[in-house]
């Protein structure tokens, strides 16, 4: 989880990036029909057409207002199809997306604040979204099921954790903490696509703005890591922690309910796998993620498992297009798994050693193994869509 001030932007950008990827792979279906002129002003958001054929859509945006604006295409439930930020006064921008038939909204946000000025639009027809390899559709379906299963299996584990917190049982809560995060960590890129849930449940202390971690004002800091601090740093649980435990369950139930609707594509699965390794490379290898509990290796393992799941589902197609890559990935996944096994006695359990006990040499070795896997993994999306 990244700092709060970036989180919303990041989540939106992730979705945009995934959408853009889809767009690029299927732009053969592009045509002039799909171009919509959007004229943004400080008080208006005019679109040149409110109905357009589904498929490749291009927004030609012109900001004629005096404020910096941003423009979105939104699903009816406010999820982002694509967006472009920081469109300065007097400037033009193009945004493309692959849009299925259905109802959408185009929103301009002068000053980049609020809900924006919205226009209802409709994508019509059977759509010109290019046909996809049925094996990839199957992979997406399987991955969606996986993401749902992870969420479903997480809820009872989080409830065990929350109950222990509410009972004031520090030891039981500590024990339940890391296991309650595994499902989330396995599917984090999907969870992050809902920009509002991630900051609520997985924000770290360094994600807070200055002063927000102050005892009186840190009401904005919720989620696992806030409780982690109470348990390991403070060593005691307060009434506030009980509230936070309930809140965590509520927020994760929200995730459980929405995960099935996440936009998932073969390339977003592939790049999601790489993003899980990026999470490891930036947050776990350094010990930043679990700075109080030092349970980083549990998250680490879960991230790798999630990446491996995506990879395994895409492997048959990728192996046809780039057999050398899948050979390399098989080898590097195995190498990283073997390395991680050094840090747990029971290879079926998640009882990893405290990250504090992993010395500089061990961390370097883990970092090298992550780089060795993540670099070829960054080529998976291309191998899937070739």
């Amino acid at each position, binding site marked *: 989880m990244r700092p709060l001030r970036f989180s919303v932007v990041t989540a939106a950008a992730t979705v945009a990036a995934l959408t853009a*990827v889809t767009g690029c792979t299927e732009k053969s279906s592009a045509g002039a029909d799909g171009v919509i002129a959007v004229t943004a002003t400080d008080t208006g958001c005019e679109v040149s057409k409110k109905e357009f054929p589904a498929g490749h859509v291009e927004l030609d945006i012109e900001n004629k207002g005096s404020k910096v604006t941003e423009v979105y295409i939104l699903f009816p439930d406010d999820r982002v199809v694509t967006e472009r930020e920081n469109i300065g006064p007097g400037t033009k921008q193009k945004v493309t997306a692959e849009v299925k038939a259905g109802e959408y909204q185009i929103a301009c946000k002068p000053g980049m604040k609020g809900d924006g000025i919205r226009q209802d639009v409709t994508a019509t027809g059977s759509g010109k979204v290019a046909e996809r390899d049925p094996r990839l559709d199957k992979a997406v379906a399987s991955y969606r099921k996986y993401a749902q299963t992870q969420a479903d299996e997480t809820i009872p584990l989080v409830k065990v954790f929350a109950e222990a917190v509410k009972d004031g049982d520090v030891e039981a809560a500590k024990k339940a903490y890391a296991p309650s995060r595994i499902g989330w960590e396995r599917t984090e890129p999907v969870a992050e696509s809902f920009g509002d849930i991630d900051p609520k449940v997985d924000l770290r202390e360094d994600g807070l703005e200055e002063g927000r971690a102050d005892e009186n004002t840190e009401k904005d800091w919720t989620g696992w890591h806030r409780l982690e601090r109470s348990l390991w740093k403070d060593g005691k649980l307060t009434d506030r922690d009980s509230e936070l435990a309930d809140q965590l369950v509520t927020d994760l139930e929200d995730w459980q309910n929405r995960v099935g609707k996440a936009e998932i594509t073969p390339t977003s699965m592939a790049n999601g796998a790489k993003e899980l390794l990026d999470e490891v490379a930036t947050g776990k290898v350094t010990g930043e993620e679990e700075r109080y509990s030092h349970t980083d290796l549990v998250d680490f393992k879960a991230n790798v498992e999630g990446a491996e799941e995506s990879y395994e589902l895409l492997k048959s197609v990728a192996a046809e297009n780039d057999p050398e890559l899948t050979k390399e990935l098989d080898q590097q996944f195995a190498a990283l798994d073997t390395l991680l096994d050094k840090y747990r006695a029971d290879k079926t359990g998640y009882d990893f050693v405290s990250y504090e006990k992993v010395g500089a040499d061990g961390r370097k070795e883990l970092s090298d193994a992550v780089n*060795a896997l993540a670099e070829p993994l960054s080529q998976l999306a*291309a191998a899937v869509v070739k």
Partner: protein
Amino acid sequence: MNAEDSPNPPTPSRRSLIGWGGAGLALGAAAAGGAVAVARTDDDAAPTAGAAVAFHGTHQAGIATAVQDRLHFAAFDVKTDDRAEFVAMLKDWTAAARRMTAGKAVGEGAYGGLAEAPPDDTGEALGLRPSRLTLTIGFGPSLFDRFGLAEQRPEALVDLPQFAGDNLDKARSGGDLCIQACADDPQVAVHAIRNLARIGFGKVSVRWSQLGFGKTSSTTPEAQTPRNLMGFKDGTRNIAGTETARLKKHVWVGEKDVDEKSAWMTGGSYLVARRIRMHIETWDRTSLQEQEDIFGRDKGEGAPVGKAKERDEPFLKAMLPDAHVRLAHPDSNDGATILRRGYSFTDGTDGLGRLDAGLFFLAYQRDVRTGFVPIQRKLATDALNEYIQHVGSAIFAVPPGVRDADDWWGRALFSASTTEA
């Protein structure tokens, strides 16, 4: 990766420079004359500051090549046990080095490729000139414990002995192999190491690396000797890139230096890299007289004690017995001479607020046993030792040059060993 055959992406200034061949290089050099304001007026290389240095040759570039302004040096550990995989990486590295030293992007470039994949080239050198980038590879003693190479380890590739005053940090020492990237533009040097490290992930990992600036020695005697961070000129009589006879005598490994098993080193050289931390603050509090006595030169002109000009022949006996120049001079070491190619470094400050700075010393020689080792032993009594500390150390066998487009770094070594890749 098939870097060699892939089309070059649109990288305007670098590409056009190269695309025009010889004429382009000449034009680029002319253009560089005005643009390379960073090149000092005494810069020996000013006429060609932006151009490309030939990658192919009998010897690797980056040794006798006129010293560039910037350095990024990286030592790597080998992670793979698979000889074929390692050889494939060396070939990929060679292809990437061939392109980068010519000012071209790696592989299929930094943009314009598949939207779904990260670009082959990281892109930060787009639009920059070749900047006389040289990439020089070396093989450390520990490499020869792998891949059945033990018999090919040259005798001259010794494990360096413990020297008096050494306080070596393991994390800044050793390495199975190294890449020395020198360029007139730091971004070009960093780009090269970054891209090679990326290609190497899984096969090798960076063990340590060092950035350097302000070359502290010159291989072009017509230029002024650059100063080190102590403010002194040092290494005035360094071997020049044009001194064929001295290079042959002191730097290049000759046919007589090798046996059948180490013949792959013919035309190569041995590199010693030392991270020498300077105690800058105490040095700066030292009187001028003491500073000059320690070096055996005056601070202004750089003239040896009792002489008027920097290049006047030093009279060693006029210097204090522990003066640096006196101890390091070939006359005090049975003629032992090395080619110095060091750079200053400043890695910010340490936790005590002291400048973490010094000299990243690079010495090339025909045989370390008659080059660096006796000189460094002699320096055990160097008065300078009060103000410096050797904190990192490594030694590498630097193979001969890559001959042509079909050749690759390490080919002679890997072809010579028993199990051919």
